Structure formats: structure tokens, C-alpha cells
């Protein structure tokens, strides 16, 4: 696949494992338990994109914007100017829902459709090439049936792919459990799955990252050790085999 068709995450080792990056327009499930690094990875993806001139948007549904920006400010990769200039847009989805007059707890079919429209409109108007929803689990919780979840993710992914927008959806799962989503549907619609987990080594938890699936690219399936530091953000190294 030509390099121009790939969306580089900007995390060197991860891009290498992906054969250069994510096929543009893919919808990728970023799976992990609480504290596994989903939000940080997604934000680094957006910030790195903005540094390459690709506009991005981050829809949060799990934490208020002031907390999100406060947490991210500790990372060297985070550049406040990119937020201020509109290269990275941070939007609280709960506020959008309220403004649309949607029931904030449970969405009807019409609510879901209205929300989908507004997400597409925002992505289109801002001409974003990278989009994050943190988390799809919290959003799916508001959708009342499995059919609604399937329909919502499918339509969202299709629309964004048509705009050549690469999307990360974070998926919350319980710790130490190898499952990809809360509802068992999300992984079948997504083009890619990146699993953030951990392994126990004598009581120390080592963060891990594994690309489980990525349509359109020959990717590595090895489990890597992952580190999160304020200096470099997300970093990967081969996981020593004795712990696998």
C-alpha cells in the first residue's frame, strides 16, 4: 500500500508494526481497561496529526474538558497552541447532547440519528482527518439495543471513511479480561482493534499493546511492552517472551 494512503499515528514503533500506519478512513477500536492509556494514545494520534497539518477532533463523553486538558498538559507532545488554533478540537459530547435536547441517559432511534448527523456535520465542517470518540462504550450505553449500536457505529464509520477521516473509538473493558468491547458488537464493525492490556511480572504490572486486527494492512500481531512518560508519551518495546 502506498504511503500516502496510510495515516501515521506518529508513535514510531506502532507505525512500524502497522506497516507504516493505519489505512486512511479506517475506524479503529482502542480497547483497554481504566488507566491502560487509551485516552493518551488517542490524544497523541490527534496532536501528531495536527503537527503534520491534519485537523482533528476529540469527542469526550467520559470526562469534562477541563480535566482532560489538565491531564494532557503534563505531556511534552501536548501543544496547547494546536487546541487554540483549532487544529485539534475538543468537544464535550454531553454538552452537544444537551444542546440538541437529547435525553442524556437513553437515546431513542431519533436521538441517535440526530447525534450521528451532528457528528458527521462537525467532522465535515471542520474538515477533520482524524477523529476520536472517548468512549464508544459510554455512547453505546445510551443506545438501547444491539441493533442501534451496530447501526450507529456502521453509519458513523462509513460516513467518516467517505471523508477520508481516520477514527479511533475507545472501548472500555474490565481489567485482566481479553475482550474487545462491552457489548460484543463494536469489534465486528470496526476495521481495526488495538488492545491495551497488562501482564503481571512478580506483582509489577507491565503495560502492553497488541494490534489484533487492522483491515487493509499487513500488521504485526506481537504483544509489545508499552510505557507512558511525560517526555515521550507512548513508547513501545518488544515484550520479553518469558512473560507471555
Amino acid at each position, binding site marked *: 500500500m502506498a504511503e500516502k494512503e496510510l495515516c501515521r499515528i506518529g508513535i514510531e514503533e506502532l507505525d512500524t508494526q502497522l506497516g507504516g500506519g493505519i489505512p486512511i478512513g479506517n475506524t479503529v477500536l482502542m480497547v483497554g481497561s481504566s488507566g491502560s492509556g487509551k485516552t493518551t494514545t488517542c490524544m497523541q494520534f490527534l496532536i501528531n496529526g495536527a503537527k503534520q497539518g491534519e485537523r482533528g477532533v476529540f469527542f469526550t463523553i467520559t470526562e469534562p474538558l477541563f480535566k482532560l486538558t489538565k491531564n494532557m498538559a503534563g505531556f511534552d507532545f501536548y501543544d496547547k497552541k494546536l487546541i487554540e488554533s483549532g487544529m485539534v478540537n475538543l468537544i464535550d459530547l454531553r454538552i452537544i447532547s444537551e444542546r440538541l435536547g437529547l435525553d442524556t441517559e437513553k437515546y431513542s432511534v431519533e436521538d441517535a440519528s440526530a447525534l450521528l448527523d451532528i457528528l458527521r456535520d462537525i467532522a465535515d465542517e471542520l474538515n477533520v482527518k482524524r477523529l476520536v470518540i472517548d468512549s464508544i462504550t459510554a455512547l453505546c450505553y445510551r443506545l438501547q439495543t444491539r441493533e442501534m449500536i451496530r447501526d450507529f457505529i456502521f453509519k458513523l464509520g462509513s460516513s467518516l471513511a467517505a471523508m477520508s477521516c481516520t477514527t479511533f473509538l475507545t472501548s472500555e473493558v474490565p481489567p485482566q479480561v481479553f475482550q474487545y468491547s462491552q457489548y460484543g458488537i463494536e469489534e465486528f464493525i470496526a476495521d481495526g482493534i488495538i488492545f491495551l492490556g497488562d501482564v503481571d*511480572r512478580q506483582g509489577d504490572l507491565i503495560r502492553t499493546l497488541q494490534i489484533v486486527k487492522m483491515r487493509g494492512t499487513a500488521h504485526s500481531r506481537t504483544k509489545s*511492552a508499552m510505557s507512558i512518560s511525560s517526555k515521550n508519551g507512548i*513508547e513501545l*518495546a518488544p515484550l*520479553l517472551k*518469558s512473560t507471555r
Partner: protein
Amino acid sequence: MANTLIDGLQERISNAIKINQSVGIILPGNNYADLMQALFKHMRSKPEDAWAYVAITRPYDDVVKQFGNFAELRNVRFIDCISQAAGISKTDPHCTFIESPALLEKLIMEIMDTFRGLDENVDKYLVIDSLSSLLIYNDAQLVTEFFTHLTNRTRLAGVHTVSLVVEEESNENINKIIYLRSDKIIKVRESFI
């Protein structure tokens, strides 16, 4: 007498790392302090080189107490793997503290990060003090694998390694790997004074 020993050690280390990419030093525990003195003397004499020193045998603070303050040595970066695991909470601009000596992948990342972005013309050196101390916290197979990964990466990055093995702490696996992965082995013996 002591100076002769230290000077002799320094000379051997200096000669070995000049021409070899990776040097293994096998020493008895009672020569550890002498070897440290020789190593630090060498580091001080080469301010133009970049050094990373991984402290596994002794905490960084203890190294500073015994071998002097490194604040003036901008070319030496310490990575301490044992202080935090021992409950010692400390920050120091010259040292990176890793939570546990069992986090070997993180150790590799920190080591490589130390040398990232340095001028290609700068000679880069890594001291592992010591490979045998890692056995206290990890099984031998894991340490062997760690050392193999690390030396693969340091070779590619043009980093010279000086890896210590204290005889009393070591075992057959570690002795094998140090011989296999080192271009030159220095065996420290009282007899070579």
C-alpha cells in the same frame, strides 16, 4: 597499592572499550569498589563522551556518596532501577528512577532514550551495573533475553556497552550470555595488580 590497582583497571577498561563494541567485566565482589572507582575515573576523564549508567547493584544515592557528586558531569546520565522498589522516593536531574528492576522493557526504553538525539560523532557508552544483580529480581531466562534485546539495539545505535557480572551473584546462564554477547571479556583478578 590501591591507586595502582585502580589505574591498572582504568587502563584495561579504556583499552578494551576503545576497540570493542561490547565489553563484559567479570569480577569478584571484593573488587567491586575498585572497579567502580576505575570506571568513574575513566568517565570523568572523557567529558566529551556520553555515558548512561544503570544502577542495579547500588542505589544512585549510594553511588554518589561513595564515588562523588556527578552534578558537574553533564555527560553521565544515571538510570536507577532499585531505589523506588526499595521505597526510596527521590528525584534528581541527573538520574531517571524506574519503579522496579523487573520492568526490563522500560529499562531498555529509558536506556535508548538517553542516547536519542545525540550527535552522531559523540561516542556513546552504556554501563550495566550489574547484569548479575538483575538476577535478584528476575529469572535467568528473562535476564538473558533482556540482555540480548538490549545489546541488539545498542549495537544498531552505535552504543558501546560495558556490562558487569559479579561472580558471587552470577549463574551459568548469565556467564554464558556475557561471553556470547561481548566482544571482549575482562576478568578482574587480584593477581593482575
